[in-house]
């Protein structure tokens, strides 16, 4: 029998990664098992018998050497690495009784994950702010400068929103 593949597009926010994991679990319960991930937010599923899988996401970017160690560690602990999408690492494990289904087992390491996402966002946010600030101060010699200004402002607002939501998520975890 030929294996059928289905591709879905789904946007997700970094502070809602647990909702993303739940969605992937529900897909597996319906017989759609994640087989690869591609930018921007494309999920490829293999259609097969429904199974109880646990999906978990980490945010990690590293050199090749470190990545081998990292993936080996997850594999030894029973996690299958499905793919990587802009530093988001997708893992899966069969849900079994008595076995831990978490890749992060304390609040500190969960917070550290969101801080890695934040570090990435700051790298873009700061130059965007500088560019936007610079655009406002100079008179626009061309008519399309206004359009660029609006685009930069929208991206800047999106990043600001993401940063605020991530900081809120971290605060929420700290209170636990």
């Amino acid at each position, binding site marked *: 029998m030929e294996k059928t593949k289905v591709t879905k597009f789904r946007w997700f926010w970094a502070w809602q990664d647990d909702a993303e994991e739940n969605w992937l679990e529900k897909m597996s319960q319906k017989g759609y098992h994640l087989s690869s991930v591609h930018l921007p937010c494309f999920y490829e599923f293999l259609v097969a018998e429904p199974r109880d899988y646990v999906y978990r996401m980490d945010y990690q970017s590293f050199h090749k050497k470190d990545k081998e160690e990292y993936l080996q*560690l*997850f594999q030894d602990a029973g996690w299958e690495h499905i793919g990587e999408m802009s530093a988001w690492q997708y893992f899966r494990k069969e849900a079994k009784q008595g076995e831990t289904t978490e890749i992060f*087992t304390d609040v*500190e390491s969960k917070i550290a994950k969101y801080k890695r996402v934040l570090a990435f966002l700051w790298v873009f946010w700061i130059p965007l702010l500088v560019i936007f600030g610079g655009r406002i101060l100079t008179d626009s010699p061309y008519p399309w400068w206004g359009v660029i200004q609006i685009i930069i402002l929208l991206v800047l607002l999106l990043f600001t929103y993401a940063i605020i939501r991530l900081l809120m998520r971290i605060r929420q975890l700290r209170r636990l």
Partner: protein
Amino acid sequence: MITADDAKKYLPLTEATYYIMLALIEPLHGYAVMQKVEQISQGTVRVGPGTLYGVFDTLVAAGLIVMVKEENRRKSYKLTPKGKEVLLGQIKRLEIMTRKGLAATNRL
């Protein structure tokens, strides 16, 4: 050798970090650390691979553990003398906690 004061800046350790350092009294690779932590903590602490990877990273950067062997993509780590000082500092804190805790609750 570092002094007890130098060790203090790393304290208190999280429960996971404490047990991971305790496990690394002998050289072990990642998965062996996970198993040993569960065993020596009598099942009270389990460390997931994401948490362990982060703790390894932090401890190596702080010079509290060091990589001693690399085999089949598995790196083995061991506690450094500095790491041992920090671990002893944590044990002292825990000892005070349990001693005072037991003394106080015994009177209840």
